[in-house]
């Protein structure tokens, strides 16, 4: 009887608190401007998180891909050979906008490295990006291609 009750209890428990759909690492890719490469949250406040969390479930196929997710967007007009730079800007557009606006941060440091800006010129490089924020991000639906082009041009100015 106790065993049956235990099973019943578990069923009730999972039915009542575990009805929400879990969202694994769903990548919302909704265009090419700001806010396009954001990762969704795991569904919250369900017991079922107990399982979601450590399974770290992902839906569908795994990325064993060191793939470039930039194909659906317009590519930079300038001849930019630096594939890593394109990939990085495309995937980190929001963080980059934030770091450029505040004139510091890990993404602008990464940018400086990818563009081989020498260490002594980096502070003025960040400052230069900050003052040209409106040029780099003229509108919210800016294409990453424009961002790359403008940054490369600004970095060339030294």
């Amino acid at each position, binding site marked *: *009887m*106790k065993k049956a*009750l235990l099973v019943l*209890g578990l069923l*009730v*428990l999972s039915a*009542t*608190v*575990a009805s929400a*759909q*879990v969202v694994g*690492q769903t990548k919302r890719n909704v*265009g090419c*401007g*700001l*806010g396009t490469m*954001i*990762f*969704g*949250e*795991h569904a*919250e*406040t369900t*017991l*079922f*998180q*107990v399982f*979601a*969390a*450590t*399974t*770290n*479930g*992902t839906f*569908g*196929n*795994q*990325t*064993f*891909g*060191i793939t470039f997710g930039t194909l659906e967007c317009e590519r930079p007009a300038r001849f930019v050979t630096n594939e890593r730079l394109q990939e990085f800007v495309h*995937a*980190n557009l*929001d*963080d980059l*906008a*934030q770091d*450029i*606006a*505040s*004139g*510091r941060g890990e993404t602008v440091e*990464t940018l400086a*490295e990818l563009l081989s800006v020498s260490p002594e010129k980096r502070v003025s490089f960040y400052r230069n990006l*900050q003052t040209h*924020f*409106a040029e780099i991000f003229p*509108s*919210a*639906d800016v294409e990453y291609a424009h961002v790359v082009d403008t940054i490369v041009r600004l970095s060339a100015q030294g």
Partner: protein
Amino acid sequence: MRRPAVYPLSFFVPFLVFVFLHLPAARGAEAGGYREALQESARRLGLADDRYWDILLHYKPGLLGRRKSLVDDPRFFLSPKGKSDPHAELAATIDGLFDDERDERLAPRCRFPARFAWLEDRLSFDASRLPPVSCPDLESKLSQIDARSAFLIFASGHMNAPASMFGHTLLRFDSTYESPLLAYAVNYAATVDPRDGGFAYAFKGIFGFYPGYYSILPYFDKVKEYRNMDQRDMWEYRLHFTEAEVRRIILHVMELQDIYSDYYFFKENCSYNLLFLLEAGSPEASLTDRFSVWTIPADTLKAAIDAGLAAEPVYRPSRARRIRHIAALLDERGTALARAVLDGNAVPEDVLSAEIPGVEQARVLELASEVVQHRYAKRRLSQEAFQRQFLGILSARSRIAGAGEEVVPPVPVPARPETGHDSSRAAAGGGIRDDRWFLELAFRPAYHDLLDADDGYTPGSQIDFLSGALRYYPEAERLRLQRLDLVRIFSLAERDAFFRPISWKVSTGFETKTFASGDDRLAYVLSPGGGFAWKRPLPGLVFVMVETALGVSGAYDADYAAAVGASAGILKQVTRSWKALLTARGVAGVAGDKDRGTELRVSLEQGFRIGRRSAIFLEAARTEYPNRDFGFTEAKVSWNIYF
């Protein structure tokens, strides 16, 4: 899964021509002799029983002591008996050296580079006596990752989902780039079926019905993923591996590409499977053997540190942590201004004209830009609304020149995850109930509760599995199971100006209920609840909750009692090693045995931490059954050991 490219037949033609032109007639016979010689030296060296062979093939002793691989994908083995026969698999692997397959996707030496690198090292074979092999796809992946050093990354738990309190681990491989954002992460996860609902998901996750795969992806994807989840801080531990050891690990990762192992939530999970990779780098560190029943991510981190593989971490705070940090730098007026911008009651330019110092203006705008991203990640904003707000805030921010640490100093580093108590706890204690003395023994396999020291854990959270207590009353010479929880979860998530989380609890299991004065019975109880919590400087974390309870026992009239009510409490960290929890809870019976279901209880529980390994708990409680006119008082002291 990126499918391997399908090469047109013409692609192979040059290869085939090459093979025909260069294959001497005598080669077959000569190769046969050399093959036998290598098989013989492998037997002489006992390679099939070598620890490294066990690591690379994920062999573990089974129930009868025979080794069996934890990898379930048949494609991982060259011998059809490979999963359970290490000797047959080694023989087949040596045969693989002589395989002249030209298709990289099929050629054994391209598919299992770590095995062959190890064999080359142990057998010192003469490559010129083997068929030539080239693995361009493997080489291009290796050069793209360009792994020079490795890091163990620990993502801590998520505040309002104590479930994810267990955290997660992954590996990061850095190249010559300085920026960690340009590194690659190796992750192990279950691939779940999106059509599965909660129960199916839990069942399949626990009992190995989902396949687990290793994956490689840009580290920045992982950084973004965890930062967007509340409170999931990341800790980056540099692993003391040489470049050669790092190469061994990455070669092993390559052979696990698209290979599945059945995923078991409690043991063979994300963190457990990463340990094989660490062992591939450092076979003398025995890591996987430390875990036999369950694998908690933080424990694997502790194991790696104990083995001397990792030290000093770099801390990467979550966005939620950053928001609270910036808000704490601002006064009331500053946070109000940020809220006005976020709620559309002010435009970002208003901040620039506010009569506060430039550095304050910059903080207000940085706070707003973090919160707007948080809201968007939580899907509380449409993409258009997000873009408009985010861009407006940033363009105002870019007009203030200040950029250094004077704007926002680094987020203070909390206690490191490995400094926390170990997750198993045993307790011995005694107490008095009205006028009867008792002794109590308790055991909790995992993981953390409200009275345990919070260092390395999420404050205000509790998740206990299979926690139980035995009680002995000497006077009555009676030993009884006092309680056995299946699971007990408590999440107290503070609400403030920018976060409005729900606090919740659920517990289920067997509990002792008192049916009449002195008449204790075990009942099966399920009690979920939900409410709010706020942090106040003086009292501490204050919470109120709606409570529900269902009790099932043959001793209840109608065999059950259902009740609803409320609870309120205060959780206070009095000093660094002293915590106190004051709770009042009242529920009234609404169905079944209404009289016995009605219960009032007030309790004061205190925990005193003594070092990292032990603690003393003091508890005092008064329980009343108002409809049955009785109640009892109980006090208890216990000595707790963490291990």
